[in-house]
């Protein structure tokens, strides 16, 4: 035995052995090279697909962040705006009476034909246009008149003067100017009449129409009557409320369940059954959770339809298994020596878990939470079943108000009949959603590196 450990002088036997080793060597090396090549190819393919995805989204979505905006001199013509002076609270007039007078006055202001003011302003900016009033107004967003009214109600002194006002061009005009519409199509297939198209081009040439940053995407809610001014503020806030519900419910419930199952529960058939079921729940299609939510939260508990609270509850159900499974595996990864150290000092089981074991798993729990929340943020199917695909034209004030959600907004815009305008809008919403997710992930990475440094 010991003799084989002593280096042998080269004999016939060892030379032959060496030759055999060398014969296989090149095959072994080439096998390794091949494997590495496959790995690199796989990564390149994956990165390629991601690059294609992001390029497509950015290419389609970025133009939606700028929008054709009309800037014209508006004359607040007293002949058109023939309303009484704004009421002032009289001596002895009750609060209720004053409010009624004010409402009456505002109604009067609303009844004004603001379209005439808009038309006059646009005509003034493009003298001699052949477009009739209908055609002219078709290039201006329909809510421009409400903006003028609001401006007047806020400051009645503006009557009789001229102000420079920005208003959105209509979706069709925006499309036309962005070149989304084939200019060679015959009149019958164009959405804008020929004089209106000519008017839009003219206003663009003389600088009255410019492409400006469309900040209203972030501040406005969805709109059908005025598609150009549609935004996703309502959906954004709805999604935030749902995230809040998910974080507040899924994290404590999930972490506590995992801690109990992993650290305290006796290992028997019942806990095995629970474990198997939790793993199965993680694989249940999300639409099933939607059905469950509709049946339990809406039909049984009578929670309101389309509410972010219900959406958040459904998404919590969906996220719980992810959080539980990830927390358990993080707990399992804690070295037993740490538990022994604490127990050996006389720490109780609970103290051991909460003072020593759980803190080392925070980074893992955090990662799991972020993955779960990001998944929930992008989930659409279960929300459709609890009515969150309804058209909601307001920003929800509380989690019980009706609302939409970002992915549902994407789904709704994607199906909008005004295709070539909303295609870009859809991509813009996707960019916002992805931006939100990247932000979440960045926060998670930041927090995790801080937690890990503290160790």
């Amino acid at each position, binding site marked *: 035995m010991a003799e084989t450990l002593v280096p042998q002088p080269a004999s016939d036997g060892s030379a032959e052995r060496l030759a055999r080793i060398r014969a296989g060597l090149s095959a072994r090396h080439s096998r390794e090279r091949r494997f590495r090549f496959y790995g690199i190819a796989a990564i390149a393919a994956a990165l390629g697909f991601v690059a294609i995805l992001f390029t497509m989204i950015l290419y389609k979505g970025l133009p939606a962040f700028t929008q054709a905006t009309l800037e014209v001199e508006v004359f607040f013509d007293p002949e058109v705006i023939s309303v009484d002076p704004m009421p002032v609270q009289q001596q002895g007039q009750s609060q209720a009476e004053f409010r009624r007078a004010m409402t009456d006055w505002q109604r009067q202001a609303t009844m004004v034909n603001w379209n005439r003011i808009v038309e006059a302003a646009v005509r003034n900016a493009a003298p001699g246009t052949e477009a009739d009033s209908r055609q002219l107004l078709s290039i201006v967003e329909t809510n421009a008149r409400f903006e003028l009214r609001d401006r007047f109600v806020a400051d009645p002194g503006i009557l009789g003067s001229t102000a420079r006002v920005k208003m959105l061009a209509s979706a069709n005009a925006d499309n036309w100017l962005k070149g989304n519409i084939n200019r060679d199509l015959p009149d019958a297939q164009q959405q804008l009449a020929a004089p209106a198209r000519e008017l839009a081009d003219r206003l663009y040439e003389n600088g009255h129409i410019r492409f400006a940053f469309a900040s209203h995407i972030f501040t406005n809610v969805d709109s059908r009557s005025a598609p150009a001014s549609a935004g996703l503020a309502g959906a954004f806030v709805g999604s935030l409320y749902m995230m809040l519900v998910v974080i507040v419910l899924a994290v404590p419930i999930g972490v506590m369940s995992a801690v109990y199952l992993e650290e305290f529960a006796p*290992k028997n058939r019942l806990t095995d059954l629970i474990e198997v079921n939790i793993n199965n729940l993680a694989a249940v299609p999300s639409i099933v959770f939607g059905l469950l939510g509709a049946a339990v939260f809406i039909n049984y508990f009578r929670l309101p339809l389309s509410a972010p609270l219900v959406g958040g509850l459904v998404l919590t159900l969906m996220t719980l298994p992810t959080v539980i499974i990830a927390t358990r595996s993080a707990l399992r990864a804690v*070295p037993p*020596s*740490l*538990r*022994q*150290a*604490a*127990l*050996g*000092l*006389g*720490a*109780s089981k609970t*103290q051991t878990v909460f*003072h*020593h074991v759980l*803190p*080392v798993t925070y980074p893992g729990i955090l990662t799991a939470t972020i993955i779960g929340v990001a998944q929930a943020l992008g989930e659409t199917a279960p929300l459709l079943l609890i009515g969150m695909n309804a058209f909601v034209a307001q920003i929800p004030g509380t989690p019980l108000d009706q609302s939409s959600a970002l992915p549902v907004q994407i789904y709704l815009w994607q199906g909008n009949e005004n295709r070539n305008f909303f295609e870009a809008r859809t991509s813009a919403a996707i960019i916002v959603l992805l931006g939100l997710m990247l932000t979440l992930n960045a926060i998670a990475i930041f927090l995790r590196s801080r937690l890990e440094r503290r*160790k």
Partner: protein
Amino acid sequence: MHMPSEKIVPSSDLYAISSSTVRTPDESPRPVRVTARDVSVFYGAKQALFDVSIDIPEKAVTAFIGPSGCGKSTFLRCLNRMNDTIEDCRVNGRIELDGQNIYDAALDVVELRARVGMVFQKPNPFPKSIYENVAYGPRIHGLAKNKAELDAIVEASLHKASLWSEVKDRLNEPGTGLSGGQQQRLCIARAIAVSPEVILMDEPCSALDPIATAKIEELIDELKQNFTIVIVTHSMQQAARVSQRTAFFHLGNLVEEGPTDMIFTSPGEKRTQDYITGRFG
């Protein structure tokens, strides 16, 4: 020089002997602190320890030696009921600390572990600051009334573990950033901060280099003035250097136990002699 009658004869009349004494080589007879009688340990159906009976003297070092898997660590872990944490581990027999059965249902295991501290094979400081490592035990047991007292306990413990001079300027740095030997001394400081009566050490030097080992051994020698120490070691030289009494375990049996010099110079059993002379193990 030592009479063979030193060896413990397990018999029923010894069940209440916790006030009796055993001899250690350096000094006169010492009072017994821990008494074990007919201790058997089962892992599931497998028996790991067979009817072990031993007396552990106060303020002395008792070493458990024996080949791997002989049950010495298993027995050590019975003394502060760390085996409770292992599922389907069953302990039969009787272990008394100052005459009180530690497997009594009325005894709180948390209290027991505050009285019987433990140092593990691999240094396992908490992933917290050096200060927090030492302060944790006194804090959970409520041993310090205020921050000043806690500071004093931490400093005294680190002094006793001969670590104070090395870490006094970086008490807030993580304990895991120390060297292996320092980490183990930190673990000893952490154990003695609770002022236990008995300290169990499970191969405390097996993960350390010779210099760190020498420091720990020196430390054990100092600690025995205040604490009752039980040490498991696979190094016979270490047992000979630090202990006053030695117990030799083999295949789950306590083969022989007595004053260290006697075990190493004139063992009563052939198996002990074979092991000590390196014939197996």
